[in-house]
Each structure stands twice: as C-alpha cells, then as structure tokens.
C-alpha cells in the first residue's frame, strides 16, 4: 500500500500542477457562463488563437513567450470586446440557440483561418523552461513549466478576485450578472458590461494560450479539446466561483494524469471526460456551486 502511494507521488503532483493550467483555461469560460449566461463554444479556439499570436510575436521579437503576454493580453482583450459587442450581444435573447450557434460558427471560422495561415503543422512555444525539470525532496522530478503554469494560474485568479471585489467595473459586472434588470435601473449599461466581461475572459484565454503553447504542441484544430477541458472545469467546479473553478481544474488534471498512469497514455483524455460525465449526471450544478 505504501509503495503504491509513493509510486503515485509523481502523478499526483503532476496532476495537481496540470490542474492549475486547466483552471486558467476554464476561468474565462466560467466567467462568461456565469455573467452573460452564454456558453462560448469558441473559448478553446480563443486559447489557441493566443498561442498562435504569441508564436507570431516571437518570430518577430525572439523573446521568452511569457514576455509576449504584454502584447497578447491587450490584443485578446480587444478581440473579446469586439466579438461580444458587435456579434454576440446582437443575438442574446430568450432562447439559447442563436448565441450558441454564433459562437459555434466563430469557432469554425477561427480554426479554419488558423489552418489557412499556419498550415496543419504542429507548433510550440518551447524554451529552456519547457524542458527543465526541478527535483523536489530528492525523489521527485517535476517539469518546471508545470510549476510556471500553476503559479501563473494562481496569480491570475487572485487578480480577478481583487478586480471583482474592489473595482467599480468588477462590482458592476457582478451586479449585471446577479440581476440584469435591476443593474440597468441603477444606470449600468449591461451590453457594455457584457463586452467588458468577454474582454476579460478573452484576456485570460490569452494567458492560457501562451501557457498551453509553452507546455504542449498545438494545431489549428486543438481548440475544441481545450473547450471540453474548460467546460469540464466549469462543470466540476460549479458556476460563479473563482475558487471552485480552480479546484475544478485540479480535480480534472488529477483525473487525467491518474487515468494515464493506470490505463496508459491513450486514456488521459478519456478519464477526464468520464469525470465530467459523472459530475454532469449526479450533480449538474457542479461540486462547488454557490447556494
């Protein structure tokens, strides 16, 4: 029993660290789900779009991919604002189908645009960080990039938490998400608020995209894979909770790595999907949902 546990130390550590990355992939999706009540089916493609933007930036200015965030975050922010303000706001209404389908159309367009520009070849933002491992306690080696992902995720979630609780815009966004009608009566322009929310969500997708690109290879069609991960994080973590989203990411990451450890690498995604389906079945509101 003890030997099994010590065998599992590595996978558990890696699973938790990977879960941090999943948390940041899911955070933007969770925000939009909670605030605009929209499932952004293009969220995964936003992440991959940012990976490619970083890839392009590096080809002009050969710097560490993390430094490209200075450009990527504002660009993604603007992109999110435009998409919400000019496209998605126009189809928000009583039924969920139109915004869902517009986002789906957007996803198809992004994937094929990336395919057209960058060809189907695998790309990566690998640097020395990506291949370095650091020893922990003399018996474990963890990839440095996983640790970077995890720390970046915690910083992002902490900053978002501050933003939603301390700033006027953050409070306005929360008000609009609690009661759209009442917020409008208080003089909040909810359409603009939704655009801001999507802008911030796209900004977090930008951070996620750079980290994903530094951790794994990516293709134009990788988006949907991360969409399902993001959705899994949102479902497992529950709606409207930053901490829940983070914990959802950890659970999903752990499930995937342990699944791969016991069943073989082919089953890494599968065990994540199974966890998602189990939670969807037994507690569709998520494990850490408020109220």
């Amino acid at each position: 029993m003890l030997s099994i546990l010590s065998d599992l130390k590595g996978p558990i550590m890696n699973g938790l660290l990977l879960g941090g990355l999943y948390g940041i992939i899911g955070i933007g999706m969770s925000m939009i789900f909670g605030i605009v009540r929209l499932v952004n089916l293009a969220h995964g493609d936003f992440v991959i779009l940012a990976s490619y933007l970083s890839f392009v930036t590096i080809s002009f200015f050969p710097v560490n991919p993390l430094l490209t965030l200075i450009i990527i975050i504002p660009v993604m922010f603007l992109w999110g604002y435009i998409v919400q303000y000019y496209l998605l706001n126009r189809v928000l209404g009583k039924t969920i189908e139109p915004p869902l389908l517009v986002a789906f159309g957007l996803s198809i367009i992004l994937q094929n645009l990336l395919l057209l520009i960058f060809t189907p070849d695998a790309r990566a933002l690998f640097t020395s960080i990506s291949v370095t491992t650091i020893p922990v306690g003399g018996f474990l080696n963890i990839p440095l990039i996983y640790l970077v992902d995890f720390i970046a995720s915690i910083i992002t979630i902490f900053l978002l938490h501050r933003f939603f609780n301390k700033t006027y815009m953050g409070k306005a966004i929360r008000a609009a998400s609690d009661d759209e009608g009442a917020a409008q009566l208080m003089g909040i322009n909810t359409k603009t608020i939704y655009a801001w929310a999507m802008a911030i969500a796209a900004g977090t997708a930008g951070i996620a995209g750079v980290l994903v690109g530094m951790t794994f290879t990516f293709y134009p069609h990788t988006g949907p894979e991360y969409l399902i991960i993001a959705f899994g994080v949102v479902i497992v973590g529950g709606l409207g909770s930053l901490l829940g989203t983070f914990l959802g990411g950890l659970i999903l990451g752990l499930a995937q790595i342990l699944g791969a450890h016991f069943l073989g690498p082919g089953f890494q995604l599968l065990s994540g999907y199974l966890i998602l389906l189990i939670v969807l079945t037994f507690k569709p509101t998520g494990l850490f949902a408020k109220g």
Partner: protein
Amino acid sequence: MELLQSHRFIGITLMILAFITLPYWASRYWVLVVLLFSLNLALSQMWNLLAGYSGLISLGQQAFIGLGGYALAVFSIYYGFPIWLSILIGGTVSVLFALLISAPIFRMRGVYFAIGTWTVAETLRILFSNWEYVGYGMGLFIKPAYKLTFNTIYFTALGIGVASVVLVYLILRSKLGLGLMAIRDEETASETLGVDIFRCKLTCFLISAGVTGVVSGVLYLHTIFIQPYSAFGIDWTIRLVFITIIGGIGTIEGPIIGSFVYVFLHQWLSDYPSVSLLILGGIAIAVILAAPRGIMGTIQDRLGFEILSPRRK
C-alpha cells in the same frame, strides 16, 4: 402563391421521378451530387427533429454516425453478415446506445445537454482509437461494400432521404408531434395538460439515433473506409447545424433547402477545403444575424408558403 400551393404535389412527384431516373440520363457526377444530397438530408432531418422540434441541441450526432459505420464494418467484415443486415444492426446498436446514455444525458438541459452529448461522442472516439478489435486509429476497409454497384448505393441513399422527410412529417402529424409542439410553445403548461415531456423527447432521441445509425451505414458503403477520428468527429455535427440553420431550423423543408445549398457549396469549393469551411461558418453566422429562421423559415413568415405543412388545418 395559390398556384404554387396547388401544384406543389405535382412538383414533388416530378422531382422524385427525375431523381429516380437520374442514373439513366445524367452523368455520374450529378448522381453523386444527389447521393450526397440525400444522405445529408436524412442526417440533418434527424438533427432538426431534435434541435428544431424537441428542444434538444445535440452536438453528439457523430456518436451514432460512428456506431452505425463501425457496426457495418465489424459485422460485414468480421462475421460475414449480409451488408443490409449489418446496416440494420448499426441502427439497432445506435438505438441501444442512445437508450443507455439517455438516463444520464436527459438529466442535463440546454447547454449541458449539448456539451454532454459532445463529450459522449468524444469518449467513443478515444475508446475506438484505443481498441485493438477495430484496428485502433488505423481504421477498417469495408471490403464487402465493393460487391455493390454505385446505382444500388444511390437508390438506397435516395430512398433514405425521401423516407426521412416522410418520417418527420408523420411524426409531426402524430400525437407525438402534437405533444412536441405543445412543449415547444409552453413547457410547463403542456406538462400540466398531461404531455409526458420525458417520453416525447426520449422517443425523438431514440428515433434520431436509430435513423442516423442506418444512414451512416449507407454513407460508409460509399466511403468504404472508416476511421475513428473522422467517424466520431465533431465535423459531422457542424455540417448538420449548418444545413439546418441555413435552411430553417424547425421546418421540414429547412434541411431540404439547407442540404441543397451545402452540397452545392461543397462541390464548388471542394478544391479549397479550408476556405470552404471558413465560408460555411461565415454564412451560418450571417444567416443567424440576418434571418434567424433560415431561408425556409423566412419564406414561411413572409409569404406563408409551405411545401409540407405539419399543421392541422
């Protein structure tokens, strides 16, 4: 418009006659176009039955396409079953699988249902690509299908295309259809009046799964080669969403018009597959913004013209 209404059955009959005799007077290219049209029509008619009439936005129709195709492959290659029997087994397997997942999947609503069905299909994709029995990700060649002539496949596809339209028409004119429309208009009120919502939706889900499985079998007679990444790929559902949205979601004619548009666009843009999807995505968004009810829905709203009306007069 009156003239159109009264002559519509003559028009439909002439069109079907033209399609039946097509292999004898048209080039093989046009026969192929109508074959693809018929199969897309049947598949999108089934997605429309779910999304347009039952309020079930499924993003997992590819699960049944994969199951139908793999059932054909496995039973005809490994067990030497007759091809048509294998295709029917594919339909049965799809229905059984739909029944199996219905318990958890029907606990999910709206968006949850959409992603739930997608996740189920993704799960199958990974299972099949890790399954030695079906040749992992390498896929299978459905050699027994070589015995069939191109015309046989064409007539089967055409028959299935027409049958799918008739089937949806009959469903909508039945008690089930009445229940579906009541649910669509006001879910709570219809339940109070005794409409069994779960049963109505489940029936549609099972019918849709079974027919999709069978259509997929015919489709793979034509494709010959099946591989998990394409068979269980989301591209199938993207196509069905596009066809139904363009044509008009929640109308019987929508998938007919949509399949027509899709097949022609696809043929025209076939040299540039990447651009073709790009344009399809753009058109879909433009249609949702400009005419949310699609081509046929807009015509119905403006002119009151319907080819097949499911309404009681």
